[in-house]
């Protein structure tokens, strides 16, 4: 405690001493003295008290040396008017007196200042209670030395400064004002702001976005304070105004729709009319999506537009393509497939349409749908296609009938025709069916009609008719009868000649002594050669037939002769036959169709041959029976053979003298020229050979028609 006091004193006086030193720098002695005094005072309360008094009143005027005196007037010093501020700390009433009596104090206005004596150090202090002024009176009671004394000073307590700072405030446009709050500093003495501060702040009027000054308004403090007000602003910020564009669509080429939007966030009773301007979209007219943007849309200064975009979708416009109906004739080239386009917009030219129509495949007559094919109109159009048909009509096909003729009774000739106008690589084979003609078979002209002729569905037949002329027919007499007589003692023969016309045949006999005709029966009068003539004179439809003459052939069995032991040969010396079929035992011999027949081994059986004449008639020879031991009877031989020209040679035969009755021998050359005839025949006769070299035919002919022959070589 002592140390503290000492230090406080030293500090107290140190300032004084500094001032003194500033004045007495040229007075070293005084400085020395002062130092000495202070030290002493410090260690002696009495000294200190004296010194203190002396110094307080005299240091500037000179040094007072403490001395003890009697009944001395008390002087209260260091007790001056002062000014304090509300809230200051209790302060010591440091009046001093030269009297050792204690100084007491009183306050004239305890509501302002009260005084009290510290129980700690017994010093008197003043306590400020409120602003104002109070007279503090220091009183010293008289003692032995000093008189009583009072000294009053006025202590003015100024109001304390109370810093009131308005808090800056913000609000969104349209919202209620926030509370205007303050920040208070400077409250002392534990004052409560609630009791100190009254009234309220206010702000400049206005609701639009902006800054509004917050003023002190009615805000006041109690009497102890003086408000030092620091203003602030209420800032009204923009309110968010949500504007959402409505998605829009339009068709390519149409005008843009009105771009609309929905608004949320209008406040302060604002009408939507506060929104001005309009939204817009990104440029472009082709099909696609274009962003709707805020454009110049504005909601004034109070709103912060929060724009939510959308799209304007441009969809394809319908482009109507209507195929034009087309037609062509079958086989001709397709016409150009054209169309009519409606619906082009946006000043588009028809050239935006590309590609070409197609049609269903096919070339036959009929309707073929014309299809859209490769027609497109870019991305801005949806083609609405209306089809049509390519109609293929029939082509004309010229059918010109060829004039025909036929002979009466003959089958109709094929009714032919010439075709022109085939197209499309059609072959003539497509023409089917056949022409026909007007009915009738008599000689005359008959129109040829189209009949069943058809060229399928692709043609229209253009027919040019002509005529089938039926001309008078030739007729032939068919008569392959073999008038065999004497073979089986046949004496009458049913004549079987027939005409191709079916008209009746009339017969005559060249030698009526040999045979006569009775109707269709040949009556043989004698076995001899003669001809039977078959005739048909014709009629309106037939020309007269060529007469057919058949010989009455006696002994036709002589047509077959034996050559060697294994061969039969048919006598075709007249050249009347050209085909044969050999029979053995009444059965045809397969493959044996030559003029001769060779047996496999010796002849053994009954043989005959059916010969076919050059005129088609057939002849059957009389059957002959041969065995190895019984060769065919009747033969002729010559000797010598060969024979020299003009020499005599012998003709021998093995026929009986009876058979030789009426027989004759002819000698002919190979050209058929008869050289000589011998009418008196015996078994062996001598004959002079012809004068020319060559082969000669020696033929023995019996009266019954049988014959035998051999060839003579004349050298």
């Amino acid at each position, binding site marked *: 405690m002592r140390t503290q006091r000492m230090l406080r004193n030293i500090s107290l006086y140190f300032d004084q001493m500094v001032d003194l030193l500033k004045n007495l720098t040229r007075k070293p002695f005084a400085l020395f003295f002062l130092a000495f005094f202070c030290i002493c005072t410090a260690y002696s309360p009495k000294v200190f008290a004296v010194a203190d008094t002396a110094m307080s009143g005299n240091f500037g005027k000179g040094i007072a040396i403490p001395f003890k005196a009697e009944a001395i007037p008390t002087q209260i010093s260091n007790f001056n008017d002062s000014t304090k501020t509300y809230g200051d700390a209790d302060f010591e009433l440091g009046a001093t007196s030269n009297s050792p009596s204690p100084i007491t104090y009183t306050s004239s206005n305890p509501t302002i200042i009260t005084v009290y004596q510290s129980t700690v150090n017994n010093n008197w202090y003043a306590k400020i209670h409120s602003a104002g002024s109070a007279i503090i009176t220091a009183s010293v009671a008289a003692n032995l030395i000093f008189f009583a004394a009072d000294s009053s000073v006025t202590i003015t307590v100024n109001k304390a400064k109370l810093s009131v700072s308005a808090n800056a405030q913000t609000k969104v446009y349209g919202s209620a004002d926030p509370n205007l709050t303050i920040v208070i500093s400077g409250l002392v003495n534990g004052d409560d702001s609630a009791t100190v501060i009254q009234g309220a702040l206010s702000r400049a009027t206005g609701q639009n976005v902006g800054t509004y000054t917050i003023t002190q308004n009615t805000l006041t403090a109690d009497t102890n304070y003086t408000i030092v007000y620091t203003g602030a602003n209420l800032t009204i910020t923009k309110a968010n105004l949500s504007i959402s564009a409505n998605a829009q669509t339009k068709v390519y080429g149409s005008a843009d729709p009105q771009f609309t939007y929905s608004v949320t966030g209008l406040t302060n009773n604002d009408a939507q009319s506060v929104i001005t301007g309009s939204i817009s979209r990104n440029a472009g007219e082709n099909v696609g999506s274009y962003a709707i943007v805020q454009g110049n849309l504005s909601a004034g200064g109070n709103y912060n537009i929060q724009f939510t975009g959308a799209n304007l979708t441009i969809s394809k416009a319908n482009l109507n393509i209507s195929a034009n109906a087309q037609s062509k004739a079958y086989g001709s080239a397709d016409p150009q497939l054209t169309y009519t386009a409606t619906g082009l917009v946006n000043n588009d030219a028809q050239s935006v349409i590309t590609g070409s129509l197609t049609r269903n495949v096919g070339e036959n007559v009929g309707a073929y749908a014309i299809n859209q094919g490769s027609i497109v109109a870019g991305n801005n159009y949806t083609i609405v296609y209306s089809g049509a048909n390519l109609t293929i009509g029939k082509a004309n096909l010229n059918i010109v009938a060829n004039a025909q003729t036929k002979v009466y009774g003959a089958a109709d000739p094929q009714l032919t025709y010439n075709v022109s106008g085939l197209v499309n690589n059609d072959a003539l084979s497509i023409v089917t069916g056949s022409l026909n003609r007007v009915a009738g078979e008599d000689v005359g002209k008959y129109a040829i009609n189209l009949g069943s002729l058809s060229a399928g569905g692709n043609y229209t037949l253009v027919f040019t008719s002509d005529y089938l002329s039926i001309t008078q027919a030739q007729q032939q007499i068919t008569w392959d009868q073999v008038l065999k007589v004497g073979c089986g003692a046949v004496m009458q023969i049913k004549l079987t000649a027939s005409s191709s016309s079916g008209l009746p045949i009339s017969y005559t006999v060249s030698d009526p002594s040999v045979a006569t005709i009775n109707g269709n029966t040949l009556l043989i009068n004698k076995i001899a050669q003669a001809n039977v003539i078959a005739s048909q004179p014709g009629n309106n439809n037939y020309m007269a037939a060529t007469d057919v003459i058949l010989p009455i052939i006696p002994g036709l069995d002589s047509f077959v002769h034996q050559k060697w032991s294994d061969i039969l040969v048919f*006598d075709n010396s007249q050249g009347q036959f050209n085909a044969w079929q050999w029979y053995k035992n009444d059965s045809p011999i397969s493959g044996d169709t030559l*003029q001769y027949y060779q047996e496999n081994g010796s002849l053994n059986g009954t043989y005959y041959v059916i010969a076919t004449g050059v005129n088609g008639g057939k002849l059957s020879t009389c059957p002959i029976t041969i065995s190895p031991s019984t060769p065919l009877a009747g033969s002729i031989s010559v000797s010598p053979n060969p024979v020299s020209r003009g020499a005599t040679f012998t003709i021998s035969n093995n026929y009986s003298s009876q058979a030789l009755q009426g027989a004759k021998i002819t000698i002919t050359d190979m050209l058929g020229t008869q050289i000589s005839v011998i009418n008196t025949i015996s078994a062996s006769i001598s004959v002079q050979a012809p004068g020319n070299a060559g082969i000669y035919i020696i033929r023995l002919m019996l009266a019954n028609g049988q014959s035998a022959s*051999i060839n003579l070589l004349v050298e």
Partner: protein
Amino acid sequence: MKNLIILILTLSFLGSVEAQEWRIALSGPLSSMGYKPSNSNSKLMAGGELGTNYTFLFGKHFGIMTGVEAGIYKGRTQLNDGTMSTNMIDDQGSAFVYKVSTKGYEETYQMTALSIPFMLRFRTNLTIDTYWYLDAGVKWFMPSSLIIHAKDSSMNTSGYYPNWNVEFNNVPNHGFSTTNNWKGNREEALQMGLMGSVSSGFGFPLGGDWTKILYVGFFANFGVQDFWKTSGTTGALVSYEPNGAMPQANGLHNTASGKVPLQPFSFGITLKLGWDFSKKAKQKGKLNEAPKENHKPISQPKK
């Protein structure tokens, strides 16, 4: 006596000649029979001669030559396709027309012959080392029999009997049938006769003198007469075989159309190697200076 006189004259002649040359000759290669019936084609075939001869020179340019040669003559005759007809008598005594139809019928001929040439030689020097010669004359031709090889790709024999106007062409057992690739052989006798002959070429000495001489030239031999020994027949090309045997070749010579002369000929190149025995010949380049003092004219041999 006559032959003796000829021999004496010949020896005298040999003693009078100036030079003698002995040669070996090879000739060929083409030959033909010179036989071409109607409706046929005659073809050459290979042939040749080998011979030796003496040449007797009478002076600088002329001489005679004789010797002996052996040769082979070949030829071929192809008959046009067709039918040949012949009148014949069958085995039953009836005449008929025997028809032989051939396709590809041909006959090849071959004969050998010896010949004795009688040639006149003319020669002259072209250069000191070359002379040109010309031999011309005849050969006494002595042929062997002519061997005939006949063949036919297809042959049909048939018999036409005019009394019935029928032709048998498919009764093999009676000689009328068709035969494929038929072959047949025949040999015909030939007679001797004269052949014309000509040869010309060049002679070159071999070695240091003219004692050995190489001759190179051409030659041609040609018959100047018909060498058939018989005139042939007018029969069929092949035989009529009534028993069905294979027909035998008669040869074209025995058909009517084949009765044409046979005149062989050959031609080609001849090579001769000669040896000259004269003393002059040993003097190179002196051939054109043959001494004349011993020259004597050629005398005709007396007959």
